[in-house]
């Protein structure tokens, strides 16, 4: 049996964390580890930037809080870069899935945050789903 938690967030400054605490119309979904779950087994995510500023950056996801056993875990989700798009430029889309094995503590809260590391790329953000088992 599995359970999911999905959160999203956005920001505009590089090297400044984006806490992931909302999920669209659901302003503050519970981030407590569900009963009976002992691990995070998969991360699904999409990350993006509008490139109103040129540069390149790597996107990290941090998983912390008392809900994560063994200390804070940080994983790379992707990288984005380019020059300021002109009228003919394309956009971007992102979807990734990563199998993981992170021990969690039932009933404790997991803190998730994105960190765009590198250059300021303009508005940026993402959505993350973690799957518990």
């Amino acid at each position: 049996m599995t359970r999911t938690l999905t959160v999203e967030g956005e920001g505009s400054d590089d090297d400044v964390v984006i806490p992931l605490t909302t999920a669209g119309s659901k302003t503050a979904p519970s981030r407590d580890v569900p009963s009976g779950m002992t691990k995070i087994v998969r991360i699904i995510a999409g990350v993006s930037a509008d490139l109103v500023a040129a540069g390149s950056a790597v996107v990290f996801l941090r998983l912390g809080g008392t809900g994560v056993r063994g200390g804070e875990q940080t994983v790379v989700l992707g990288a984005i870069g380019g020059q300021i798009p002109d009228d003919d430029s394309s956009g971007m889309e992102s979807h990734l899935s990563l199998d993981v094995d992170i021990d969690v503590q039932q009933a404790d809260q997991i803190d998730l945050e994105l960190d765009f590391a590198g250059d300021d790329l303009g508005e940026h953000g993402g959505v993350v789903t973690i799957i518990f088992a």
Partner: protein
Amino acid sequence: MGKQYRSTSVEVTDANSKTQMTTQGSKGTITPIKVPAGKKTLESVFIAAAGNNATLGQAHAFIRLEGDGLPGGPETLAVTAIGATKIVGPIHHMDAVEEPLGLVATPGNEVEVYGEIAGTVDPGQISIGVTLVFV
């Protein structure tokens, strides 16, 4: 027992210049990555890279894994290749991929991670991110 994940990144601006990864975004310079206690294998890496397309041409990015945390010796891993004929646009983007490695690791010892780019011309800047997965 769960796995342990350690991440870092770098912006590489010069071709054929090995550049150590020592930062992690808002955390700035992080302590050197050491093999966590009780972990004896670098099972895999998550990798991603993207360039800022500041100059025309093509380039490729790779990482080097070194240090006494890897008793089997240094390893090199390809990450991506990019190219463009026009500086303005397109947006370069790469979602992270996991590559299995299965390298013997020594708990408590350091793993040094380096990024490097190469190509026909300096490609501008490429950001490279790496997660080391220890088990």
